[in-house]
Each structure stands twice: as structure tokens, then as C-alpha cells.
């Protein structure tokens, strides 16, 4: 027995090996010590976006087994249902084999195989012509991309502003809501303090974002007996184990949260000290209706924000640590009437329209429950405070002998995000967290480095000017601080194809990939030439309004040319989108490639320290495929993009691996932060280290730095942390990060709508900007609620992600698809009675956008006004290596068909993207439906149905019997 301390997440005494793990002498001939593998390669999983460390066991040249890496900071040895099934993903029959050039009509699936050289020539020629004439005619959207710092940089060097990944239809509301408020956000930028929290609230989280860390965390809470409260219309997954499940009506979380705020304010249960130290609550706001400065902060001549000093009875620099700022009152400073931010907060949320009684019915949560939750929050935050015996120094140099914490933590995701009111709801949740004083404190919600950053952080979006053969003056995605930063022309019209950073979606920090196909098809705001996409199933489950999207992809003009002239698509598998490409660049699987999980991108840091990771080829491809990132780098070189070629015109980087090691974004800072410098002795900043990848491999595929104890909390105002962050290049200056409860950038948009400033919205947009760019969080009904006849479409329809599937990927996986190959529509028993439906009935699910047919399953654990189904199970025939009779394409269905991609026309006939008005986040969960039993002869199969895709050349039919593992055994037994 070893005496080493147990590693890994699930290493409780009851989860460890036997005290004596020697095989007993049973004499039954069982081989208890078979050889497991010839070698173990440690890399990073890609079965979803969680990016866990995995140990890949290779035996006889095949993957024998994949388990979690016990040292990895993300998953600490555990692995999820997807991760373990990685073997079947790697050996999927749907893997593309060679570059393909379309021969039949778009969408038919008729291709011929071509060599890589020809494929790259075709792409280079096309893109080169675009770059010489009008770079924005390349729309480059990269889907579920984990290499956005490369792809975005490539787009920038190419000179097109039309770049984004899938964040716009995923969770930009959470990212933007957080980054504009607290300078961080849930998931990748923060996490609950699982080890110390005593009260955990989970809003709108199915399995995703993120996967194993939440599960590990919930395991910890359960082991400690901490209370878990879930706010979710569906009682599945994490919500199933909540001590308190609140089956809220979809899209009303903001109301619920603001009612909690109301209760806490009314009872005086807010952390005033915390508000004064870390937020803009004391900052004075001009209150002069009609003036150009109305609603902006009061500043002194040097631009410092001012507060009102209660003691000195005069304005004071709000950042002055010695000040005694007021939180309430009405003042006059420099002749301007003003009030502290907190006064505005109190005025708004103490209003009775935010009381539990006022919101209960709309939320579907009784007022008593809201009051109880508020009381519990207050009780745990203020009566069960914790104190860690660690001394630390704040930004102003004040020493604190202990770290004080309020053990209430929260996590929120898609359920909040995927509504047209999600941005403000997310801000409301952060407001609640901050009022309780629970952000980055022991037991609360904690930032993950490189966050927090100033709210909003960093650079503004580039792309104001687009010129041939000219790189953008920055990265295409960024954070606007006011109308001046928008990407609009003199008429106020969008200059990006997805209309991000326009008046229609001013804070669109992740772009609007979901509107690209429609806009490109309509030539609105302009036609494009080439749509290049990577790894996103836009012709199926990643689009709203699938039927019309498919029609737009294949629509032709009068001359018979496709309205979207050229489509380049890269994917590893034969998804529903491949068939719509003109040129297909086949990608590798995740076990065959290099990747970096970079701090410049979407980090995998832990709240206790920054980290990053790599993928490296564990197996060599047995097909003529190449990793997309290497292909992109080669395309960059062939196009002669600056920074992709040396002065002599030769390629600067051999491939992605070469780029990962040698690229420097700014001097000393590259894709990987670990083992920098000639000898690998530096972190964060340092020279290029040619051995860097090997050092990562030797360390298990990742790098992680652990904070000293005094750096772990209050990062927004912790000197030791802030100094470290500057050193690492996370932030520019070691200044405190002030939480923006009141968002001045948003008010600037409002002022523009009121006719102030040099960039003003067109007349038609002013009402929308005025309404939704409210500097304080507020709740409004999801757009579809206001435009649909709710008598006719009384139900909400949601999707949840099955824990064992990642988008559409799981269905090609022989193991995962067995768990779910048909999705049911889950309907509340009571609701079914009203509709005359019985268990297992086949029904039409109808929205204003269309109808889809599926089979129902009756349950109790759902909000009665809500129906839901598993996401992305329905598949189109001919895709994903499935046989035509697979349940996925006969009984499984896709809710996407009935979710509109546009709002209903307004008075002027204008239709907006079906998205959040602030960020452009796709409003998947706004859809209203009715459910109608289908005729007897319609039961048993799903509709709509689509024509079957032809199979690419040399695709073998999938096997009838899978005996994976038999070969290992045969060889093992032969050797005995």
C-alpha cells in the first residue's frame, strides 16, 4: 500500500483501492493483471468544450482506454460520459477522408475527392482575389473553435472584420453581462468557491458550461451537506439533485432575481462595506434630464470619478481610499445635480413592482418561496460568514489580517443567456451577487485568471476601415464603450455582415454567427463572396429556422448563381453542413492534432491559478486529412498575409505546432504561458522556448500555476494578485477593478438615442436603444412573448443538452447514440391532461415559424407551461455515418425547425435577428409553441423530412456489428 496522499477529485476513503490490492489466490484462472497499454499519452479532451486532461492508453496501435488525468486542474482525474466514449468518436464511420470539391448541386452531397494541393490552390485563388479587392467579402466564422486567438488574428491579418466564433448563439449574454459588470463571468472566467460555499444557486444550467468542474463541485457540496438551489424550468441533470428546485417560467429569471434584490434591500441585508470598496455604488451620476451629460458619471478635471464625501460634505475622488463616500442622497457638484449610483439602485428596486407579490405569477414561483430564498441568502451571507486566517494587502496598501467571506455562490448559463432579455438578467444576477458581497470572496463566486479585467475589458472591435491588402488595426472582436466604437457607416448601417456592433446589437462581443447566412443570402448589409466556416453545424442544429436556412444556402439568383457564391467548410466529420460546401477541408480528430488551450483565448484556469494546455498527436491520421489550424496557417502563408510570411515571402510557421511555440502576440507573450524563456524558467512572459511543447507533454499536457494564499481572493482589489496579473500581461495596470453596477457605456448609447453625440442611431433604432440600453439591469418580456398570440401558443419550448452529448457530435458515436437515439418532448402530466394527450403520443409542436413532429413523454419535473426536449438528437438522413433507418432521422426531431431566426416585423416592417437587443445573443429559448396530437396515420415518424445526402466518395457503409476490443483480447490470450 502506498502512503502517498490520494490524488484526484474522487479519492474519498471509500473511493480508493483496496488496502491490499494484491490479487487473491482464487484459482479461477482469471487474468487479474492484463497489460493495459503499450504507452499512455496525456493530452486534452475535445468531446465537448470543457477541455479536461485525459490519459489515452494506446495498445497495439489502437486506443484501448481513455481516463481522466488526475493532475489536471480542470477534471482532476474524473471523466464524463462523452470523454470515455472518445474512442468511438475517434473511430467514427463519419470521418472525412480527403479534401472534397462539390460536383452536384449544393446540398446533394455529391463531391469528388481532390488532393490537398488542389484544395489549397482553389482556396488561395479565391481568397486572394477577395483580399485584393474587398476583404470584407470573406466572412470567416469558426463555430466551436478553441483556437480563436489564431483564427481571429488570421482574419485581422486578412483584413476582414467579418469574423466570429459561435459565442453569439451560445452564451455571449453571460460573457458580456459579466464582463461589463464585474470584469469576469461565469464558467471560463469564474467559478463558485466549491470548497467553502454553503449556499449554491444554479440558474438555467443543463449539463454544459462547464461539465466536470460543476460535477466535481456539486459532489463536494453534497459531501459537505451544503444547500443547492436550482432555478430551472426543467428538473433534469444538476437540477435533479438540488435540495430546492424552483421550476421557474422560462425568461423570467430576471424578475425573480430582482425580487430577491428588492427583499434584501428592503430588509437592509446588503454588504455596504463591500459596495463602497469594490463597486461604483458611491459614484455620482448626473441627473439632468435632457442634457448631454445626463446619466453619465461626475468627473473632476482630471477625469477622476467623483463620489460625495459624507464627512467632508464635498465631492471626493471615488477611488480615494480615505474617502467616506455617501451611498444615498442628492447632491450638486459643479452646478450639476447628481446622485450616487446606489441611490438609483435603491429607487428602482425598492419599488413595489419588484416585490415578490408583484412578480410571483409571472415567474410561476410563489411569493413565499421568493421571500424564503431571499431570507436564506441573507442568513448564509451575513450570519454564516467565514474567515480564512490569511493576511493580505489590498490595492491601496491596507493590510487585512484575515480573508472574510460570505459563503453564497451562484452559477448561471444557457437558460439565462438564450433569451432576448438575457444580458440584463445576467447583470441582475451579478448585481445580486455584489449586493451580498460574494464576488471573489471565500465561499462566493471566484474569478479565474486572467480575470478580472476592467469592466468592460480591453480593446475595442477593429474594422472601422477595411481596405484591400490591408490588415485590420486590431482584432475583429472587442468591447465597445459607447456609440463611437460601433462598426456602422455614416448612415448608421452595419459594416459587419452579422451586424455585430451595430445599433441592432451594440454590445455583440462574440458576433452573431447565427445571422450570417441570412444576411449573406439577402446581401444585407452587402453581398459577400466567400463564406468560410469551421466546425459548426449551421445547416442543421446550430441554426435557428433550419428549413429556411437550408433554402438560403442553396438559393440562386436570376443568373443561376448561388446567392452565397462560395462556401468553404472544414470539419472532421460528415455533418449536415458538409454537403452545403463547395470546398471541404477535412479536419483531424482531436487525438491526431496539435492545439493550444491558451490564456489568450478561452482559458482553462482555476480560481487558484492560471493554466493552459495543449493537444498533441497521440495517433497519426490514417486518412488524408489535416488539422484546420495548420491549414489556415498554410493558407495565410500562401496568401502572403503579414505575420504569416517571412520577409522573403516564405512561410513563417511550419504548422500549428510551430506557431504555438514561436508566435508572440506581444513581445514575450505567446499562445502558451508555461515554460517560456530559453530554459523554460519563466511563466507568462518570456522568450520563445523551442522545447516548450515537450515540456508540456512531459507535464501531462498542461501547465498550471498555483497562487500563493494571499493572492487567491479579492482579486479585484488584491495588490499581490494585481501585481502578478500585470507581470503576466493579464491587465495593463495594477489598479483595482471596480464593479460596474451602473453601466456608463450603456448610458452613452441612450444619450445617442436622445440625440446627443456625434454618432447617433438612425431614427428607427432610437426607441430600441433607449429601451434596452438601460444602465441598470431591468427585466422585460422576451420578444416573442410580446408578438405571439399567447392564447394560441401558450407553451414555452426549451432544449436541454444531454450530459452525454455535445451538440450533434454524439450521434455518430456508437456508444453515445445508444443512450439517446430518439428524443422525446417532455410534457407536464397536468398540461397533457388539458391537451388530451397521453404518454407516448405523437404530436405536432407548432410555433409561428412552423411545425415539427415528435413523440411525447409525460413527466412532473417541469414547469407546467413549458415543454422541452434533448438538443440536437434529430439527424438528417445520409449524415454522420448513420444508416437510413437510424432512429435519429426517423423518430428523433430537431426543435430548431420551429425557432424563428428573426423577430416578427415591427410597425415599419423591419425584422431583427431573433436575438438579445443588447448583445445579439440568439434567443433560442424565447420560442412559444402549442402541442397538438397528430392524426393516427401521422404517428410513428418525425417530420419535416429532408432529402438524403449522398455519401462522399470512398465512404464505407457502417458495420452491422461492432466488436471493439475483441482484438485486444485475442492478442492478449494468444500471448498467454
Amino acid at each position, binding site marked *: *500500500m502506498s502512503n502517498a496522499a490520494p*490524488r*484526484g477529485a*474522487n*479519492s474519498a476513503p*471509500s*473511493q*480508493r*483501492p*483496496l488496502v491490499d*490490492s494484491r490479487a487473491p489466490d*482464487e484459482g*479461477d484462472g*482469471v487474468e*487479474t*493483471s*492484463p497489460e*493495459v497499454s503499450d504507452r499512455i499519452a496525456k493530452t486534452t479532451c475535445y468531446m465537448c468544450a470543457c477541455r479536461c486532461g485525459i490519459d489515452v492508453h494506446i495498445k497495439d496501435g489502437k486506443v484501448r482506454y481513455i*481516463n481522466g488525468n488526475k493532475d489536471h486542474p480542470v477534471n482532476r482525474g474524473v*471523466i*464524463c*460520459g462523452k*470523454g*470515455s466514449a472518445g474512442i468511438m468518436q475517434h473511430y467514427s464511420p463519419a470521418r472525412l477522408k480527403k479534401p472534397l470539391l462539390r460536383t452536384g448541386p449544393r446540398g446533394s452531397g455529391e463531391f469528388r475527392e481532390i488532393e490537398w494541393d488542389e484544395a489549397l490552390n482553389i482556396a488561395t485563388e479565391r481568397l486572394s482575389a477577395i483580399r485584393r479587392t474587398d476583404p470584407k467579402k470573406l466572412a470567416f466564422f469558426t463555430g466551436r473553435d478553441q483556437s480563436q486567438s489564431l483564427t481571429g488574428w488570421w482574419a485581422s491579418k486578412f483584413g476582414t472584420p467579418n469574423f466570429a466564433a459561435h459565442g453569439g448563439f451560445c452564451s455571449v449574454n453571460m460573457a458580456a453581462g459579466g464582463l461589463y459588470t464585474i470584469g469576469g463571468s461565469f464558467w471560463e472566467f469564474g467559478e463558485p468557491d466549491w470548497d467553502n460555499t454553503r449556499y449554491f444557486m444554479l440558474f438555467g444550467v443543463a449539463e454544459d458550461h462547464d461539465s466536470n468542474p460543476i460535477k466535481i463541485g456539486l459532489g463536494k457540496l*453534497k459531501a459537505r*451537506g451544503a*444547500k443547492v438551489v436550482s432555478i430551472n424550468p426543467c*428538473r*433534469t*441533470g444538476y437540477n*435533479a*439533485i438540488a435540495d430546492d*428546485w424552483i421550476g421557474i417560467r422560462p425568461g423570467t429569471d430576471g424578475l425573480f432575481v430582482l425580487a430577491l434584490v428588492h427583499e*434584501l434591500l*428592503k*430588509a*437592509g441585508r446588503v454588504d455596504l462595506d463591500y459596495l463602497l470598496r469594490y463597486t461604483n455604488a458611491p459614484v455620482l451620476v448626473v441627473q439632468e434630464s435632457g442634457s448631454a451629460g445626463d446619466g453619465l458619471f461626475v468627473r473632476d478635471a482630471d477625469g477622476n470619478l467623483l463620489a460625495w464625501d459624507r464627512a467632508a460634505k464635498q465631492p471626493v475622488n471615488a477611488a480615494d481610499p480615505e474617502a467616506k463616500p455617501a*451611498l*444615498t*442622497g442628492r447632491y450638486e457638484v459643479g452646478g450639476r445635480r447628481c446622485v450616487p449610483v446606489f*441611490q438609483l439602485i435603491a429607487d428602482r428596486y425598492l419599488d413595489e413592482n419588484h416585490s415578490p407579490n408583484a412578480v410571483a405569477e409571472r415567474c410561476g414561483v410563489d411569493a413565499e418561496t421568493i421571500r*424564503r430564498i431571499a*431570507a436564506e441568502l441573507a442568513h448564509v451571507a451575513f450570519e454564516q460568514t467565514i474567515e480564512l486566517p490569511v493576511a493580505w494587502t489590498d490595492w491601496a496598501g491596507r493590510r487585512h489580517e484575515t480573508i472574510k467571506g460570505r459563503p453564497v455562490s451562484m452559477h448561471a448559463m444557457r437558460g439565462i443567456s438564450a433569451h432576448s432579455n438575457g444580458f440584463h438578467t445576467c447583470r441582475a444576477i451579478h448585481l445580486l451577487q455584489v449586493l451580498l458581497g460574494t464576488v471573489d470572496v471565500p465561499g462566493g463566486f471566484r474569478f479565474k485568471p486572467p480575470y478580472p479585467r476592467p469592466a468592460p475589458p480591453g480593446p475595442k472591435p477593429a474594422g472601422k476601415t477595411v481596405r484591400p491588402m490591408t490588415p485590420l488595426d486590431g482584432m475583429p472582436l472587442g468591447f465597445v464603450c459607447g456609440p463611437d466604437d460601433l462598426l456602422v457607416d455614416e448612415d448608421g448601417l452595419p459594416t459587419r455582415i452579422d451586424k455585430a456592433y451595430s445599433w441592432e446589437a451594440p454590445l455583440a462581443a462574440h458576433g452573431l454567427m447565427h445571422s450570417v447566412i441570412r444576411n449573406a443570402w439577402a446581401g444585407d448589409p452587402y453581398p459577400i463572396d466567400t463564406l468560410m466556416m469551421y466546425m459548426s453545424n449551421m445547416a442543421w442544429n446550430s441554426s435557428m429556422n433550419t428549413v429556411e436556412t437550408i433554402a438560403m444556402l442553396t438559393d440562386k439568383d436570376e443568373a443561376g448563381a448561388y446567392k452565397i457564391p462560395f462556401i468553404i467548410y472544414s470539419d472532421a466529420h460528415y455533418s449536415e453542413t458538409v454537403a452545403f460546401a463547395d470546398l471541404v477541408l477535412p479536419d483531424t480528430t482531436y487525438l491526431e492534432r496539435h492545439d493550444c488551450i491558451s490564456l489568450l483565448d478561452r482559458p482553462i484556469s482555476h480560481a487558484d491559478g492560471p493554466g493552459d494546455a495543449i493537444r498533441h498527436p497521440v495517433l497519426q491520421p490514417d486518412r488524408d486529412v489535416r488539422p484546420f489550424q495548420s491549414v489556415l496557417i498554410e493558407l495565410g502563408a500562401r496568401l502572403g498575409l503579414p505575420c504569416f510570411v517571412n520577409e522573403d515571402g516564405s512561410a513563417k510557421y511550419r504548422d500549428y505546432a510551430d506557431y504555438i511555440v514561436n508566435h508572440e502576440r506581444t513581445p514575450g507573450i505567446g499562445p502558451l504561458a508555461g515554460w517560456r524563456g530559453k530554459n523554460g524558467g519563466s511563466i507568462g512572459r518570456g522568450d520563445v522556448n523551442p522545447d516548450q511543447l515537450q515540456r508540456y507533454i512531459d507535464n501531462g499536457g498542461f501547465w498550471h500555476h498555483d497562487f500563493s494564499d494571499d493572492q487567491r481572493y479579492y482579486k479585484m482589489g488584491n495588490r499581490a494578485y494585481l501585481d502578478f496579473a500585470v507581470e503576466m500581461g493579464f491587465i495593463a495596470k495594477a489598479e483595482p477593478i471596480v464593479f460596474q453596477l451602473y453601466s456608463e457605456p450603456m448610458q452613452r448609447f441612450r444619450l445617442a438615442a436622445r440625440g446627443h453625440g456625434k454618432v447617433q442611431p438612425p431614427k428607427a433604432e432610437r426607441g430600441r436603444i433607449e429601451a434596452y440600453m438601460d444602465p441598470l439591469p431591468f427585466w422585460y418580456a422576451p420578444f416573442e412573448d410580446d408578438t405571439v398570440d399567447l392564447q394560441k401558443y401558450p407553451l414555452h419550448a426549451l432544449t436541454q443538452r444531454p450530459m*452525454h452529448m455535445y451538440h450533434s457530435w454524439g450521434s455518430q458515436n*456508437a*456508444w453515445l*447514440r*445508444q443512450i439517446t437515439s430518439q428524443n422525446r418532448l417532455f410534457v407536464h402530466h397536468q398540461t397533457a391532461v388539458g391537451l388530451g394527450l397521453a404518454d407516448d403520443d405523437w404530436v405536432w409542436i407548432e410555433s409561428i415559424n412552423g411545425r415539427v413532429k415528435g413523440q411525447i413523454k409525460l413527466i*412532473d*419535473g417541469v414547469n407546467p407551461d413549458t415543454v422541452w426536449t434533448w438538443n440536437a438528437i434529430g439527424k438528417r438522413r445520409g449524415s454522420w455515418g448513420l*444508416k437510413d433507418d*437510424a*432512429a435519429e432521422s426517423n423518430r428523433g426531431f430537431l426543435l430548431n425547425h420551429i425557432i424563428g431566426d428573426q423577430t416578427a416585423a415591427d410597425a415599419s416592417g423591419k425584422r431583427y435577428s431573433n436575438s438579445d437587443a443588447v448583445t445579439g445573443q440568439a434567443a433560442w429559448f424565447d420560442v412559444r409553441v402549442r402541442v397538438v396530437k397528430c392524426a393516427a396515420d401521422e404517428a410513428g415518424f418525425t417530420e419535416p423530412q429532408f432529402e438524403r445526402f449522398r455519401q462522399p466518395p470512398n465512404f464505407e457503409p*457502417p458495420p452491422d*456489428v*461492432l*466488436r*471493439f*476490443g475483441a482484438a485486444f*483480447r485475442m492478442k492478449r490470450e494468444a500471448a498467454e
Partner: protein
Amino acid sequence: MTCLPARTEKKLGLVIDLDTCVGCQACVTACKEWNTGGHMAPLTDINPYGAHVDGVWFNRVHAYEHTTELGGRTVNFPRSCLHCEQPACVTVCPTGASYKRAADGIVLVDEDKCIGCKLCSWACPYGAREFDSDVGVMKKCTLCVDRIYNDNLAEEDRVPACVAACPTSARHFGDLGDPASAISQLVTERGGIALMPELGYKPTNRYLPPRARSERAAKVDAPALEPIKAEGGFLGWIDRMLSN
């Protein structure tokens, strides 16, 4: 062989925490991937990419709604071999293929002796037996007998694949015959339950029941919030708080 050992030296088994299981299927596929190349390899899948796909799995997770007068809860329920003390699946076996190990109590199938009569699957009330129609023999959970004693694995990895994978720590492994073992203590502490005890199979595995709405529930005894009644209401209160 199919006569049961009078007693086993150990009673190795699993404990599954229904209070914590989120139904993520991690144990399910971890089990599949280990065992499809392990002692009973392969865990054959029939028609893996078509209609009516049907594979061999040693561990399956159900979802239930448990409704009592106190309310409802969704319960995810992993189901695998319980390695019973009185496993009729063993005693009914006509060939000696099924047996219970005297050393550790693990119930195994010797594939070479199995004639595929399926009677063991009829005798098992829990559905732990999985027939592999491709090779015509019965297969089942081995409690990862080729992991828990495996010299080729690091000692810390010598636990069943399902336990190693479980992200929520809902699965536990150990000697349930030793009252002093951590797993036995967990069972005592949390009121672990044997399934279908009335049938007399004496399963070794135990299930820890959900805690919500029980005396073990996580509770916050918070007094109701009282609005500030003092002069000036909430804003007056703030002023006083700040002046202190």
C-alpha cells in the same frame, strides 16, 4: 462451482449515492470502454449505426420521478450487478460458468463454460446479466476484476472504472463485509439501502437514498426578512450604518 461459497473473505461491492448522481452517464461509458477491451471483451454492439441498436453494457443509468406527499424529485439511478451474497444467477447455472469468488465475493462468468441458456438472466431480479448474441454467451459486470488487482496499473488506479470516472463522487468501492471499512461506514452513516431485500438475494451493493425532504436534508434555518422599520426606511438605515 455454482454452489456458493459458505462465506467469502471479502464482500467487494459498490455504493451508489442517489443524492448526488446527476445522471451524466460517465460511469456508463467508462465501464463500456474499459470492459469492451477487458476480461469479457468485447461488449458487442449490434447494428451500432442503424435502427434498434443494441449493445452489451454492464452498467446502465435510469431516470425516475419519485413523488411522495412531500413533493417530487428526479432520481438518476445507475444499475449494475450487485454481487449478491445469495446470487441465484450462480446457483441456477447448469454448467459452472457462473460462479461467486470465495476470496472477494465477485460474481463472474467463465465464458468458456457458458452455453448461453440465459437462465441466469431470468434468475437475476436486477437485470445485471447481459447476453452477447454475437458470441452466444452471457456477460456481466466483473467489478473490474482486471483493474482492482492489476499490477500494470498504478496502485491508485486500482478501482472499478465507474468509480474512477464518476465526476460527482457518487460512486464508492470497497469491502462491505468489513464493518470498519470506509464504505461500510458510509452505508451506516447515510442509511444505505439494499434493493429488493424481500427476494433474499442479499445484494452486496448499497444505494444511498436522496436526502431532500428527509431528516438528512441540507437546510438553512433562516428567519424571515423584516423590512427596516426605523425612521427614514432603508435609505435612513444606510445613512446610519455609514455614519457608525
